[in-house]
């Protein structure tokens, strides 16, 4: 009986160790987004808190801005003064590898997760 109990506890510890390690290691990569301007990383945003970030730059004496909103696990561009507004229309992004792009302001928001979403690319 004592021997059975010993093995039961041993395997229990084994299984719990496995599950814990897998859970934490898998969860880590999806928790932040990188913001790039002109191909240079300018910010890494923690997606575990609500946040508001303003990107501003002056080009040819005109101010350009993008207002970036963060909610738990997702990010979007809420407002921008770019001419096409494509970055705003992309809406909330919470998974996948397709970035939010503002071409006129040369701004990219890329989620740091390595899970594929429903689509591999969006065109048009």
């Amino acid at each position, binding site marked *: 009986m004592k021997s059975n109990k010993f093995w039961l506890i041993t395997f229990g510890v084994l299984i719990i160790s496995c599950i814990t390690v897998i859970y934490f290691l*898998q969860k880590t990569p999806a928790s932040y987004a990188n913001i790039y301007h002109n*191909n240079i990383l300018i910010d890494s945003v923690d997606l575990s808190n609500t946040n508001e970030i303003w990107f501003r730059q002056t080009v040819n004496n005109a101010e350009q801005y993008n207002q970036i909103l963060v909610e738990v696990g997702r990010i979007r561009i809420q407002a921008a003064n770019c001419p096409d507004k494509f970055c705003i229309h992309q809406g909330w992004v919470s998974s996948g590898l397709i970035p939010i*792009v503002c071409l006129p302001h040369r701004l990219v928001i890329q989620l740091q997760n390595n899970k594929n979403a429903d689509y*591999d690319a*969006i065109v048009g």
Partner: protein
Amino acid sequence: MYTGKNIKKENTITRYKALVIFILIITAITIAISGCFEMSEENALGLTQFHLDTHCTIIIHGGGTRAEVTKLLDEAFEIIENFEKIFSITVQDSDVWRINHAGGEPVTVSEHTIMVIRTGIMFGELSDGLFDISIGRLSRLWRFGIDPYIPTLSEIDFAIETVDFRNIVIDGNTVQLKNPDTWIDLGAIAKGYIADQVGDFLREKDIVGAVINLGGDIVTVGTRLDEELWRVAVRDPKAGSDELIGVIDTKEAAIISSGLYERMFVIDNRTYHHILDPRSGMPVITDLVSVTLVADNALVGEALSTTALLVGSEKAIEILEQTEGFRGGILILSDGKIIKVGDIRWLPDEE
């Protein structure tokens, strides 16, 4: 009765048990961690950068550790940067810049430039001159994507006089412009060629698959991790819309999208888009607003997509169906009608 010998034996068994537990836990953790690294090898990694006046995204499925895939991504973007130095109309000493500033003299260029120019001339003939890579003076005049500007009529008149792809003479590895005022612009075709080249580079690597998206010129390599078909969603071309109108499912292919919504600008409530009619010098007006094509390679796909927008749906279908390498496509008309051409797996959004 406990003797010293028994206690020693009991201690040995306890130590033995502790050792077994310790080894099992270490083994478990090791298996779990290595399993996770295995998973990360079986995941996908993407990077987006600005090159070629557009946004370029490369996503690699599989291919090793994060560091190994990051290195591959860097190498792939280096290929794009190197081609930009060859094909750019603005970069001094690029092949295109040297051809345009040679005063009509022959210029020795790379085999890549010859290949792209030859394809451009072929589509010039196919479209009766509507697709014309000698449009450089005109396209630079409008300054799309840089600092948009509406040219004056006299500026347009001078520019359209210089547009004629028949002025381009290829002899071996030299290119000559018979009219010294002509400028070539490979912007409507070079992205596709570069996407093909990056695709060829990644095809040689030990990866599961990849998606190369150079501003709407997409090349897919290999397969997805789940071995399903690649899924490319098509957005509603109406300005300001974030709705998807359907999905193209495909195996390895080039998927090229062109639309009038790209690089457009609005001045005095009038919209100006970047596909120029070389006859009038103004943005072209046909019944088409967007085309998404599936082809064997992106070079032909990109030339076809721009040609389609220039000639309108009726002539476009005729050209598409007779072009080798064309598989199928979705043409979206200005009234919202969608025409499916050729043999592709198109899943329209039913909502």
